[in-house]
């Protein structure tokens, strides 16, 4: 089976959806560690990009996405369409990344 296609439009362009398998989702809650926070506090004086945070959020998003695709594979889908991302902070210093979409079979 080829790798799962993920898109955020309603279809997979160039292919037709033959079966809908319902919603799949993945989430992860991450908190930053003290060292990173201290560095960030330091950076708050000078300005500029917080590379540590960018990486952290990217990793978390990748993890959430892979949980979603695992779920999609488990139900026998070969694509996930209409994917949305959402971020919310659940507690001080921790944030949740949530990703959801519709699992489909395309041809």
């Amino acid at each position, binding site marked *: 089976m080829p790798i799962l*296609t*993920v*898109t*955020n*439009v*309603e*279809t*997979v*362009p*160039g292919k037709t959806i033959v079966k809908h398998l319902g919603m799949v989702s993945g989430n992860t809650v991450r908190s*930053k560690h*003290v060292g990173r*926070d201290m560095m*960030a*506090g330091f*950076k*708050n*004086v*000078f*300005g*500029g*990009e*917080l590379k540590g*945070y*960018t990486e952290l*959020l*990217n990793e978390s*998003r990748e993890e959430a996405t892979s949980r979603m695709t695992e779920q999609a594979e488990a139900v026998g889908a070969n694509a996930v369409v209409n*994917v*949305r*991302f*959402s*971020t919310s*902070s659940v507690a*001080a*210093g921790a*944030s949740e990344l949530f990703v959801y979409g519709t699992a489909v079979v395309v041809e």
Partner: protein
Amino acid sequence: MSDLIIFLTLLVIGYISGSIIEKKHFKSIIEREAQLRSIRVIGVKRVPERFNKVESQLVQGSVVISIDYFKKIAAGLRSFFGGRVSSYETLVERARREAILRMKQDAADWGAQAIFNQKIETASVSQGAKGQVGAVEVYAYGTALRSTKGGQP
């Protein structure tokens, strides 16, 4: 007295380094935007049906940019009087353009010609420990399209 000196030093350091970093960043943004202009970014959700010989993939770009001390104080003063907080406007603009550029770069690496249904999410990362960290995160994502052999983009 020593508190005042520390405050003023931080303010000056923040102003100088902040504006140098900002100027550099804008310069690199403008350069890279010119390089990546060939990729069209389209906000519509429905991909026209005549684009049928294509492959698609989700592309994304994100960035977290911190405020500097001068901006923080300037914005604090501004919130007293009200009005445009221009020091934050440039910050958010920088973050957004950077995120879009990273998304486009991701698409370019994959060989895409266009990006459909581009979405942008903005979040503030300010709720750190003791509420000390002030930063803005921008995440841009969309569906990249590339033509397969014999297809039209």
